[in-house]
């Protein structure tokens, strides 16, 4: 795509990439980048030309730098537990297949709700992301979410669960969550709307939930009730 060549915009992009755009002018430009798709597109056009540094300038950082990052970002929460690492799993695959054959007829799915809950929806995401099972208690006052594997929000994010009514209209927020294994109390008005044809969706929001009352981040899981 060829955009109109605006010499003033190009000059700003150039000084931004070069690093000579500083202070308030730089922040103004960064705001325009977020708000004006044309500015972002023009910057990308020039960015693609930026020279690559050669590997000659590589300098190993101190060994203490990674452990510090890992600690401060709380990365241990995002590590694959040892029993799910693929390399270990592969060694067990044959034995596990045999075990699975024996287990046919038994409940072997990991999504198990407590007995008084019945599943009303399965939420799935793109690709091979986890699936979320949503189940409602017999008295319709409690909604329970179970994920096929742990899904945790990052330090600056929350998940928000939305109800998209069957009759259409704006999504209604049901809960702000840090993990998608959760149990939440349902307000009566909301419980009545969990009917066939309505949908449940999970979006990624800033920590504490959507600032606007409507989903602002990407929807990562969605599923229809009664489907």
């Amino acid at each position, binding site marked *: 795509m060829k955009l109109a060549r605006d010499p003033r915009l190009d000059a700003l992009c150039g000084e931004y990439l*070069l690093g000579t755009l500083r202070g308030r002018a730089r922040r103004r430009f960064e705001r325009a980048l977020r708000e004006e798709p044309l500015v972002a597109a023009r910057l990308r056009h020039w960015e693609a030309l930026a020279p690559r540094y050669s590997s*000659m300038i590589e300098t190993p950082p101190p060994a203490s730098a990674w452990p510090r*990052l890992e600690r401060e*970002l709380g990365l241990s929460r*995002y590590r694959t537990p040892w029993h799910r690492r693929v390399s270990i799993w592969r060694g067990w695959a044959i034995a596990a297949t045999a075990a699975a054959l024996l287990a046919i007829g038994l409940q072997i799915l990991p999504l198990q709700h407590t007995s008084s809950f019945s599943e009303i929806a399965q939420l799935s995401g793109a690709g091979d992301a986890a699936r979320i099972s949503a189940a409602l208690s017999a008295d319709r006052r409690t909604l329970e979410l179970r994920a096929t594997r742990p899904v945790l929000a990052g330090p600056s994010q929350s998940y928000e669960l939305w109800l998209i009514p069957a009759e259409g209209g704006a999504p209604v927020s049901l809960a702000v969550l840090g993990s998608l294994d959760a149990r939440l109390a349902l307000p009566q008005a909301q419980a009545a709307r969990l009917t066939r044809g309505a949908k449940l969706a999970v979006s990624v929001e800033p920590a504490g939930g959507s600032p606007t009352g409507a989903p602002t981040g990407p929807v990562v899981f969605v599923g229809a009730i009664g489907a």
Partner: protein
Amino acid sequence: MRSDADIKRLLLATAARGEGAAEAFEALYKACAPLLFGIAQRIVRRRELAEEVLHDGFTRIWAAAGRFDPLAEQPLAWMAAIVRNRALDLVASHDVSRVDSISEEDELDRLFDWAPAAEDSVDAGRASRWLRDCLGELRPQERQALVLAYDRGMSHSDLAVHLAQPLGTVKTWVRRGLANLRSCVEECMDTAR
């Protein structure tokens, strides 16, 4: 160094925040930290400040990975921009003494890798060559101002001190240098079509 495709895959796995995001981020760090640390050191000139820049840079990369554009051709450039921006903020708030090294033209070939990467599209490979050729055609003082600003993170006033010229003069060199570079590259693009 890993390929752009690898780096992109690691960035997207980091952004997904699922199980294994920490492993992906660690692999990303191992692959890119030496280059990004090198870039930070060239701008801030002091090792302990460069360590701060690297730490803050990767903290931002972790937080902003979800905003990485999966269509971007150069994922490393996206990360380098975050680190460069952090380094520029830091030199603005510290008195970092700047010294040495006039950028001769051959330094351009020592610092940057102009050969197209194996996975570059034909366009990107040619563009890299054009940029190098066009830099060679600039007036020496314009080229020097651009290289010092980009590589050393010098502001207009840093350049004025370093090159012992009035501020207005170096601003003009930067502005004209960029404009000449831009029209030269655009000419190459147009004739190639």
